[in-house]
């Protein structure tokens, strides 16, 4: 684990105050970076959407490109798509054995059919030549072979793409943010709590020392806890001197107590059947939480009193909305909660649970909402500390606007402001005033990294905007401050800085001579950035004239930044997690006997050693052209040569030499041409070896398995599966099958052989301390146990080890944990992995050797 700092100076202006003027000041950017895992920006809209011509330009539309995806799927995972059918039809096809099955009329010889295909595919070309045999076969078999795949897999794929597209548009899982700040015992100390890791499953506690003037310092390495699920939300709160951290994962919620010394003490873990969508810590009573799930249930939870369901309604409040997102927070009364869904916000009383509390906010005419407007975030703005604002305020954010509501005056918002964010505003925080009588900064963060700051003044107890809202510099704004990099590095840096903002925590350090605010931001890549904002006196006349927005760097900041960049650039580039086999099997099949033997030997040798298949294993490398030498003044040189020769009276000899020379290269060229034709069929093999070249000079072998490892692993499993298969196959076909298998690089991965390396949606959560809080509670959120030492369940839960490459294929015990039906399990995982990995096709790994694919081939 590596920690480094980065600091940059950003020009920014902040904390305006009504009367006081401002001056320009500097902020610092710091990052505590944990580069153990490479991060790759996941899906983009380009990966999902149809890129063709839009028919109605006036109305922009998004169409999910299912056909393209299905096409890719059929190509890349033909074994999954057609494998089962192939097994069924196996009896009736002869793949090229000699004569043995000729007698049986039910067996069709596909030898000629395969030969007709001849290694290349027409791929939708209307002028492609189709033999009668091919035509007949596709007419007869096409419907059967096509429909099955289309119906079964197409449906699933479509569903999956839809969910992914929806998540891309609005990723509600990270609502609330996963970065928390816990103030420490001393005024300038505290801890940051945030997840890192590829699956966001490592919860870090980083001690930080703030300074009134300098940048904050991370004290030592963070302590961390490995969880069994992605951390979606982190909530921190200090009530009555007790610092608590609550964490929401998909199906678990957990609570820790932070001591000033020693590791965090786990208090309790809650398991839910349905996905949890929100968690909040009570600002009134220590250790009390509100938890809500997709089932529509909202529970009050405390380690002492257990769970109490106070609301359950699968329907939305105001009108029907398909979203099952729910959110719960507290109010000024410790026993009354607010429950939010996409259509509104309503009270739920814990003393008299009912499903029809009073509405606090609804998407409708009272708030003059727009059409299609929905609640994205709701937050209670009261805190135990007496603030200049009334403790009855609530914040509601929609995709267009921000509303402030007073719970005593429901339905009619006190304030509405159009925030204009071009990403869902899922993070918000109200801060204490930087100095007494100052307006309170209210921060709003969009998932895209945009930040807005409002200044609420509570004079007369009704909140008012003390100054026009302003935007704060986002992470990507610091890009010009970095040194110019090579294009690859530049892109890496840009991607890293553009990573979605998944956490926001602001601190107003007490007792600073000049009021300042610290802003910590967590990006989805696992970086924590820091920005310092200073209150400045208003120079309204000047600020209107010019506003220098260039980024300036202190020398120290530059040094820090370089260190960070260096580590960033050292991260091995993310490789496509699965690369489709592009062996031209056909070619290998119809090779001449002597070559065949060689190829098979090579394959077998590679498999036996469990190493990568190299070009040299299959056939001698075709002599490659040396790169054309740079000849700066070709003609001039020739001329000077000739002149020289003529000076020496050897002009005629030179001329002859020239003529011979020009003849010679031509011959060589034609030979070359023949060779390349021959070797083009090895394209894929060559590309794999290219790959190894790309990979080998990496300084550190990546922890996460690369396709290369997988390749060898699949080869192993291939051997195994061969042995098994032989038993069930008629003797006369074994040889064919062996031949066939021998040249197949990919196993029939319909079974468990595709290793599932990382399961970001893994479903359980436990701390790394055995027996302390890993509590596998059964199904219902009502039940939970405290401190029940269950060693066996612990060991099962703890089985996620980033180094164990294939959890499912290697460890049969852990497999049974997930699903009692291994068959279903394997199908699910292999499908899942293939669908997940589809979008990464644009990675350039094999692009050179792959033909463009437009339509799925028919039949075989």
């Amino acid at each position, binding site marked *: 684990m590596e920690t480094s700092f980065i600091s940059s100076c950003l020009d920014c202006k902040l904390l305006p105050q009504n009367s006081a003027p401002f001056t320009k000041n500097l902020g610092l950017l710091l990052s505590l970076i944990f580069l153990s895992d490479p991060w790759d920006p996941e899906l983009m809209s380009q990966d999902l959407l149809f890129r063709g011509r839009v028919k109605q330009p006036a109305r922009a539309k998004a169409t999910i490109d299912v056909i393209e995806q299905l096409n890719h799927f059929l190509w890349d995972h033909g074994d999954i798509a057609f494998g089962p059918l192939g097994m069924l039809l196996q009896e009736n096809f002869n793949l090229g054995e000699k004569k043995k099955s000729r007698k049986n009329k039910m067996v069709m010889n596909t030898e000629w059919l395969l030969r007709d295909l001849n290694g290349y595919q027409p791929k939708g070309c209307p002028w492609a030549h189709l033999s009668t045999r091919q035509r007949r076969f596709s007419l007869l078999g096409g419907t059967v072979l096509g429909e099955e795949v289309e119906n079964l897999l197409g449906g699933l794929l479509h569903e999956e793409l839809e969910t992914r597209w929806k998540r891309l548009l609005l990723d509600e899982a990270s609502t609330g943010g996963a970065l928390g700040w816990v103030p420490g015992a001393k005024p300038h100390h505290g801890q940051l709590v945030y997840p890192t890791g590829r699956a966001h499953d490592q919860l870090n506690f980083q001690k930080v020392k703030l300074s009134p003037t300098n940048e904050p310092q991370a004290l030592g390495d963070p302590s961390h806890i490995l969880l069994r699920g992605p951390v979606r939300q982190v909530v921190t709160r200090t009530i009555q001197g007790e610092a608590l951290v609550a964490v929401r994962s998909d199906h678990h919620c957990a609570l820790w107590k932070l001591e000033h010394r020693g590791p965090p003490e786990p208090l309790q873990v809650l398991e839910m059947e349905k996905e949890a969508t929100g968690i909040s810590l009570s600002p009134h009573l220590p250790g009390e939480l509100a938890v809500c799930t997709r089932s529509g249930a909202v529970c009050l939870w405390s380690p002492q009193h257990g769970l109490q369901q106070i609301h359950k309604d699968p329907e939305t409040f105001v009108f029907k909305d398909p979203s099952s997102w729910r959110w719960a927070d507290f109010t000024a009364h410790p026993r009354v909660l607010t429950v939010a869904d996409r259509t509104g916000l309503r009270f739920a009383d814990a003393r008299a649970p009912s499903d029809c509390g009073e509405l606090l906010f609804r998407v409708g005419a009272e708030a003059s909402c727009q059409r299609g407007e929905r609640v994205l975030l709701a937050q209670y703005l009261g805190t135990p500390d007496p603030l200049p604002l009334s403790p009855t305020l609530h914040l509601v954010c929609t995709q267009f606007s921000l509303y402030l509501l007073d719970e005593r*005056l429901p339905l009619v918002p006190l304030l509405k402001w159009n925030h204009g964010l071009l990403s869902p505003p899922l993070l918000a925080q109200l801060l204490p005033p930087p100095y007494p009588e100052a307006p309170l900064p209210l921060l709003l963060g969009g998932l895209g990294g945009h930040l807005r700051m409002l200044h609420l003044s509570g004079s007369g107890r009704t909140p008012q905007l003390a100054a026009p809202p302003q935007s704060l510099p986002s992470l990507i704004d610091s890009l010009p401050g970095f040194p110019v990099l090579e294009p690859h590095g530049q892109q890496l840096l840009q991607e890293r800085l553009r990573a979605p903002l998944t956490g926001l925590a602001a601190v107003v350090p007490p007792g600073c001579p000049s009021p300042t605010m610290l802003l910590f931001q967590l990006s989805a890549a696992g970086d924590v950035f820091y920005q310092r904002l200073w209150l400045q006196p208003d120079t309204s006349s000047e600020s209107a004239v010019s*506003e220098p927005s260039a980024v300036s760097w202190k020398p120290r900041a530059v040094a820090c930044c370089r260190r960070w960049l260096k580590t960033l650039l050292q991260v091995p580039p993310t490789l496509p997690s699965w690369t489709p086999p592009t062996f031209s099997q056909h070619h290998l099949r119809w090779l001449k006997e002597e070559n065949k033997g060689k190829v098979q030997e090579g394959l077998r040798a590679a498999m036996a050693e469990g190493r990568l298949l190299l070009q040299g294993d299959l056939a001698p490398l075709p002599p490659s052209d040396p790169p054309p030498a740079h000849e700066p003044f070709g003609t001039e040189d020739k001329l000077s040569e000739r002149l020289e020769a003529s000076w020496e009276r050897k002009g005629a000899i030179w001329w002859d030499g020239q003529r011979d020379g020009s003849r010679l290269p031509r011959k060589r060229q034609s030979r070359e041409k023949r060779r390349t034709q021959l070797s083009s069929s090895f394209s894929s093999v060559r590309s794999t070896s290219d790959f190894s070249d790309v990979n080998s000079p990496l300084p550190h072998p990546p922890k996460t398995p690369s396709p290369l490892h997988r390749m060898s692993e699949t080869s192993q499993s291939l051997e195994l599966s061969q042995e098994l298969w032989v038993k069930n196959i008629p003797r006369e076909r074994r040889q064919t099958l062996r031949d066939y298998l021998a040249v197949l690089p990919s196993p029939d991965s319909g079974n468990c052989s595709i290793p599932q390396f990382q399961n970001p949606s893994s479903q359980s959560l436990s701390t790394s301390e055995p027996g302390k809080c890993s509590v596998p509670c059964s199904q219902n959120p009502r039940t939970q146990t405290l401190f029940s030492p269950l060693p066996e369940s612990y060991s099962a839960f703890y089985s996620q080890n980033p180094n164990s490459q294939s959890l499912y294929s290697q460890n049969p015990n852990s497999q049974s944990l997930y699903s009692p039906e291994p068959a279903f399990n394997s199908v699910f995982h292999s499908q899942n992995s293939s669908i997940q990995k589809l979008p990464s096709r644009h990675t350039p790994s094999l692009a050179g050797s792959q033909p463009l694919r437009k339509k799925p081939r028919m039949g075989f």
Partner: protein
Amino acid sequence: MDAFSEELMGFVQKDNQVEASKDPVPEIHLPWLSQHIQSTGSHGQKGTNFAQTTSICLNFIQEALLKHQWQRASEFLQCYLQTLEDINSQKRQMAPEIIWKLGSTILYNHPKSNVETFSAFADRMKNIGVQNYLKISLQHALYLLHNGMVEDAYRNLNQAESWRYGEMSASQEKLIKLIQAYRGLLDYYTWSKKRTEVSSFDMDGFATNAATQDMHSYFRQASVNLHEIIKIPGVWDTFVKSYVEMLEFYGDQDGARQVLTDYAYDNNFPSNPNAHIYLYKFLKKEKAPEDKLISVLKILHQIVPSHKIMLEFHMLLKKSNKEEHHKLGLEVLLAILDFSGCTENITAWSYLAKYLKQIIKGKHREWVQEGWSSRKDWWPTFHFSYYLAKKNWKENRILALKKAFTSGILLGKVKHQKIILSSGVGRPMFESSFCLLLAE
């Protein structure tokens, strides 16, 4: 392609209609969807150059506004005016409103702007397109009011009120009502100024008479408009207050009471605690019977149990003869202390301490138990924790003592009402939670 994308992606340009709920299941509208599509649709039409430049310009303006670069924003706005001639009719119609919003924000904040510039801009914008006339007039008037130019504002509102264009639509009607209401408010303002003038006059018959006449005419103008707006469901606190004040002045107590009662109890109106407070204050001034006052406050107690007027309510209930009122009196106090904003309200704590003593003397221990039963699982941590005891003792000893006494009764640790501080000075001894050590 499919129903999903058809519905989800139906990207309506800008639909400012207020909650048109014609669809049975309206889909969420995501403003960032177009970005995604643009980044994908490499072959898709990008729109005309004109549309591109205007949208870029709009982005620049918004960015400058959010960075408080008013000058820069105003320069860009000059270029943005070209949208008024957009070929897309929908955009053309939207343009004046957008320009007005941006322009007025800039002029409101720009250090070099003044009232004249703002007025000139507003007058120009009013007459571009017809739809925004009323809205801009109202905002213009509010701006003038903000700058203390009451007369100009009044003139402006008057002008706007008489403005007509075609058939009056529902939204126009609402705006007109609002404009009239604000005019009424300004009439009320003049009226109250005249009132102070009249009261300062010596009893000179003619002059007083004329002034009174004048004042009365303002009253009539104001009352018509104010009466109108109050009928529409909404939160009209200022309007109601001024209307009631005028009615009271002219001795129309019944009218005033009616207005306040309607405002408080009409179910079409959103729940508004202020309405009940106005009614209560009015009735109290009127010296209405206590039962009446109690019934008003009872409703307020249900809506906002934490209101500071609830302490007054408690006193009323305490004074009442009915036993149920006495019981409610305890509940009122406990309910106040339920709220996080009132935990350190020393009056409430001392009332509670006193009242608990009284109740126990009156042999109504079961009331205490009843009130306590729903709170016993959280009040100890909420009010009587060790942490809070220490904190209160450090910050406010009287509060700490009151709380200690109450906790003694509620937690059942007290046998008699005599508090003895065990150590006498400094820090008291704490037992389990907050409770001071109590002895007989």
